[in-house]
């Protein structure tokens, strides 16, 4: 059974179509990255899973349960880190976590959850006085309450410093190891790339691509780059390298030759450069997912 099964969902807000016939399946135990530029419909999709918003057409199921008719059962199995930096109200940080545990009917140590998200020692303070990053950590602690089978994280790293983002990645990994399904929405590619098994790219209300990170990278075509900096780049070298198998593009800027190529061609390129002059530096890189993302979303990222 799929953890999330969205089928043919259309959502219109007045004249605006937020989702156009969205189909999406997330398997149990998977860490799924839900990528898309702002306004692509990521939050609307999550809102439909949680019954905050009702689809105009189509259906959404979580662990086989209808997201609207069985919403309380769905939310009993789900931990949610909502978008934004809100709090529940004028309560201490620790009380927030206690409230989540109580709502889930779960036993658990609120202090341990606060520790886990890096809020140890501040649980007695009013949550409304927390910084943005702290509020987001607090919401994560509430999401983790009661060991949910599904974790929905809506833009979980936007308010976090690099340290917090690292904690977030670690927790996502731990939750996945425990067997939880993680649904991770973001407009920041690196965050998703670091933790997700599969990625779906949402653009203008429909899914533009779904694949593993490697799969997407392959689909990107030119799979890598090699940049060779030489004392002097001989003119004729460009033609030589362009003729090599697996090379898609060659350019020279200052004394650096840049070749877009498949990984297997990189050695031959460096070898030819070595034969024709003095190499000062060699850099290689994977194809940029950013480029891929941009190509799928029309530069909207």
């Amino acid at each position, binding site marked *: 059974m799929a953890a999330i099964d969205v089928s043919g969902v259309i959502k219109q807000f007045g004249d605006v179509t937020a989702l156009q016939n969205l189909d999406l399946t997330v398997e149990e135990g998977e860490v799924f990255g839900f990528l898309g530029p702002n306004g692509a419909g990521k939050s609307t999709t999550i809102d439909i899973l949680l019954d*905050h918003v009702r689809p105009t057409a189509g259906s959404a199921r979580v662990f086989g349960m209808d997201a609207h008719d069985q919403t309380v059962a769905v*939310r009993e199995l789900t931990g949610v880190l909502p978008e934004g930096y*809100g709090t529940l*109200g*004028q*309560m201490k940080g620790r009380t927030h976590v206690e409230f989540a545990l109580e*709502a889930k009917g779960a036993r658990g140590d609120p202090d341990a959850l606060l520790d886990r998200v890096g809020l140890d020692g501040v649980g007695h303070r009013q949550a409304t006085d927390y910084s943005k990053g702290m509020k987001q950590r607090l919401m994560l602690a*509430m999401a983790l309450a009661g060991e949910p089978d599904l974790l929905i994280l809506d833009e979980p790293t936007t308010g976090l410093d690099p340290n917090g983002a690292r904690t977030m990645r670690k927790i996502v990994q731990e939750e996945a190891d425990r067997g939880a399904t993680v649904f991770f929405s973001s407009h920041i590619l690196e965050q998703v790339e670091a933790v997700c098994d599969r990625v779906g790219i949402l653009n203008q209300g429909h899914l533009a691509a779904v694949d593993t990170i490697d799969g997407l990278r392959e689909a990107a075509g030119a799979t890598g780059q090699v940049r060779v900096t030489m004392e002097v780049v001989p003119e004729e070298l460009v033609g030589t390298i362009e003729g090599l198998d697996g090379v898609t593009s060659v350019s020279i800027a200052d004394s650096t030759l840049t070749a877009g190529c498949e990984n297997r061609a990189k050695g031959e390129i460096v070898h030819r450069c070595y034969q024709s002059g003095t190499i000062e530096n060699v850099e290689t890189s994977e194809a940029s997912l950013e480029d891929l993302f941009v190509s799928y979303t029309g530069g909207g990222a």
Partner: protein
Amino acid sequence: MSWLAVAKKDFKDSLRARTIWAISAVFILLSVVIAYIYGSFPEEMANGAATGEGLVFFLASNITLFVSLTALVIAYKSVAGERESGSLKILLSLPHTRRDVLIGKIVGRASVLAIPVVIALAIGGAVGSALIGDVAVQALAALLAVSLFFTFAYVSVIVGLSAMTGSTTRASILTIGFFVLFEFLWGIISIGIVFVSNGFNLPQEAAAYPDWIFVVNQVPPSGAYTTFLYALVPSRTGSAAEIDAFYGTPWIGAVVLLFWLVVPAVIGYWRFSKADL
């Protein structure tokens, strides 16, 4: 019993709001002053015959304005404001139903408002009774019960109205509109109805007014509150006693308060349950 968790949260949350305690302090002080005046100047206040029951009706006059105004202040944003800020999504990401949230907010906020009501009645009742030298235990208990019922009904109306919209601006228009219509304009509307039904002419004397206008006058929660109080203090007779019809009973006040307790909240829930947050 998920509404209970929401109610407890909302209760603690509202306790922290300073506005309510500022208004409450004024109200409690006013209740004591009223009790003091009634007990100290029986000649002017009760034609020389101040009684414990008279005191009860004197104290009641102070309740309606305070409860209606404070309910408005503490509850008009209760649902609409949280929808606007998005904090309702946090609450509803947990396994609470929207019905639990609505009931929890009504019970939580009404309980907060009940605190100054109980304090004011306790102190006012004690001061007044001591000055008069007469304790009308049953009437004081009736005053407390009816006042708490009124408090819950009024908060329920305001929360129900707040649940009908996702905008704080519209919520404030709805709730202030309700307050103005039923607390200020209703008397004029009532007279207007008599005027129209009497062929665009006002009857010359009060006795010539139709009996059913009594029912119209019970529509505002405050009117129903006072009438209901007469039902529980039988030694006093309100205007219901002058009416010879099946509705000529002070219990109509209880029916009307029950209506206000339930109907706006049900309509608010109906709208809220269908809304996109």
